């Protein structure tokens, strides 16, 4: 007989869990798939499954506050006349004006510029505010080409050809009508208030051979000054990296499946692509195979949250990382100070992922002027700068512990895995063994 507390007797189905049941009911009620923001929420093999082997008898560490551990990175050394010099190995990923409010974009620029790193435009073009406040700005060339023009191309410090993103490799951009304000519509040459469904393929090239020619055109237009990045969502990363090198990339950006989005089908976010952990290793393997490691720089993104994540990505061979969702959280996204407003939207601080609907109480992922005006770009920029400094300090702390005078000197040999899956994906030994699954 059940007692007073029903929960002691009720058994939840592992297959039909409460969230699964809720989703079936939601689908039946609305007739449309779930579109949301944020990144993958499922448990995935990740950098947390790796740990560093700090220095001890056979290696000596560096003094924390006395011996230098540099963290600068140069991007675009392969072909560009003007490579980018970053003071820290952490960049801000592409997020559009449209997905984000103008003050949020400004804050990203302010924060990144304060610590000497770059920000990136997004699907929708470059706003004067973000150019003004970003000392180093990467201009994305996306399939939609919204807002693409040669003047902004020349104003940019680098060009990023977006082939895909980790949240939706194989999918195009999406910005629902409620966020297509007059200004967003004008920048994208679209009618106000329509659902914007960007193309998933570029309009004027197909495949890596064409892309090589496209990049040649971009270099010609910019007189070979700007580094050209190629960004891919992590899927067939080994081959994609090789093809990106062949297509002429100066920098390759690999975005794992934890990578964020402002609006994508939940089924896409959770079920397409591979985690960032194996993606780094695959990209580095491809670069080494082509003798292009450190000649073509690798930026890794997708679920980077801490200096530990940064250090592990670098140890596996990345030159830099990129953050999106973490940067928004630093600005104030999902902050408990907005709990009352989150509750009114049927959610709670820490759970908010409805970047697509434009009602963000923080004023970050909205085009509602009233909400956007609540967001203070100076304060947001300061918070982001603080966060980036913490990530850098944490990365340097781990590098010094491993005896490295530059964060790029971290190497796979400094790592071991806590799980068999992580050992296989990162190709580092399972802790306490010399076993790397898959290696003969």
């Amino acid at each position, binding site marked *: 007989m059940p007692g007073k507390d029903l929960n002691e007797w009720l058994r939840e189905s592992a297959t039909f869990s409460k969230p699964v049941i809720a989703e079936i009911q939601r689908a039946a009620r609305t007739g449309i798939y779930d579109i949301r923001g944020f990144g993958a929420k499922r448990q995935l093999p990740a950098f947390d499954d790796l740990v560093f082997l700090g220095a001890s008898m056979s290696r000596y560490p560096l003094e924390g506050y006395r011996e230098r551990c540099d963290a600068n990175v140069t991007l675009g050394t392969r072909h560009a006349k003007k490579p980018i010099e970053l003071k820290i190995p952490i960049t801000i990923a592409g997020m559009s004006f449209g997905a984000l409010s103008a003050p949020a974009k400004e804050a990203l620029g302010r924060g990144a510029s304060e610590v000497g790193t770059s920000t990136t435009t997004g699907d929708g073009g470059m706003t004067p505010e973000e150019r003004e406040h970003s000392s180093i700005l990467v201009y994305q060339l996306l399939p939609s*080409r919204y807002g693409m023009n040669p003047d902004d191309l020349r104003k940019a410090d680098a060009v990023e050809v977006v082939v895909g993103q980790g949240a939706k490799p194989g999918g195009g951009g999406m910005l629902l009508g409620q966020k297509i304000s007059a200004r967003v519509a004008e920048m*994208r*040459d679209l009618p106000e208030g329509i659902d914007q469904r960007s193309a998933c393929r570029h*309009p*004027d*090239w197909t495949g890596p051979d064409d892309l090589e020619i*496209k990049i040649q*055109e971009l270099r010609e237009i910019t007189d070979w000054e700007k580094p050209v990045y190629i960004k891919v969502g992590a899927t067939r990363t080994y081959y994609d990296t090789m093809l990106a090198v062949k297509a002429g990339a100066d920098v390759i950006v690999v975005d794992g499946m934890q990578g964020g989005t402002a609006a994508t089908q939940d089924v896409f976010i959770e079920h397409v692509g591979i985690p960032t952990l194996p993606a780094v290793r695959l990209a580095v393997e491809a670069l080494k195979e082509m003798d292009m490691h450190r000649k073509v720089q690798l930026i890794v993104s997708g679920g980077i949250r801490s200096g530990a994540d940064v250090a592990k990505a670098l140890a596996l061979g990345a030159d830099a990382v990129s953050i999106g969702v973490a940067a928004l959280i630093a600005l104030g996204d999902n902050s408990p100070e907005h709990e009352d407003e989150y509750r009114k939207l049927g959610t709670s601080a820490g759970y908010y992922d409805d970047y697509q609907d434009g009602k963000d109480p923080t004023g970050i992922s909205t085009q509602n002027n009233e909400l956007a005006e609540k967001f203070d770009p100076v304060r947001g920029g300061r918070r982001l700068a603080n966060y980036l400094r913490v990530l850098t300090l944490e990365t340097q702390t781990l590098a010094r512990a491993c005896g490295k005078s530059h964060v790029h000197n971290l190497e796979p040999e400094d790592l071991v895995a806590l799980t068999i899956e992580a050992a296989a994906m990162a190709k580092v030994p399972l802790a306490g063994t010399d076993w790397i699954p898959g290696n003969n």
Partner: protein
Amino acid sequence: MLGTGAGEDLQLESLMTPHCIDLEATSVRDLNQALHELNGTQEKSDWQITNPKGRHAVAVGIDAPLNVNIDGHTGYYCGGMNKHATITINGNAGPGVAENMMSGLVRIRGNASQYAGATAHGGLLVIEGNASSRCGISMKGVDIVVRGSVGHMGAFMAQAGRLVICGDAADGLGDSLYEARIYVRGKVAGLGADCIEKPMGAEHRRELSGLLAKAGMTGLDVAQFRRYGSARKLYNFNIDNVDAY
């Protein structure tokens, strides 16, 4: 790649009018660099380019009212992102000719390959021959006039501007288009999703007549053209339209 000594040649050439550039002797890089030196000016000089021989990215990124004549066939992206210049290709053009053009005029005396005028924001693209597939894909304000026929998926996702086809249009014309307008004189093999025929009013005949005149197309009766545009049913997601996706 940079040709040794090409810069010297260009300096000598620049003393003459028109500027004559032989792409067998001068690299595309040096040509584009010389053209870009004039960006932002009101320079209206003539440039005669010979022996393009299918080279890519010829005369891209110009931002001045230059008059560029190219004798021969061009490869990918000729005239890409053009602003203000008048570029004439006395031959056929490879894929992506005049892609993302902002203003000016690009005229192709022959045929154009795929994606002609892709994402172009402004200016006029004239194709005196035929255009291959996806002509005017994602066009954002450019006017395109094709004397011949256009391949499949013409004006795919076209956002703004006008596409005039004096010949026939292959299947999938105007698929998922937004506010761009399409005029076709010949047969349309099939319309893409959300593209419908619309009535030709007096204002449309005037608009078409003006476009044909601007493109230098004579001997065509605007009464023979039909107009196509967006039904605007897919502008906002509606589950009842799911079969169209």
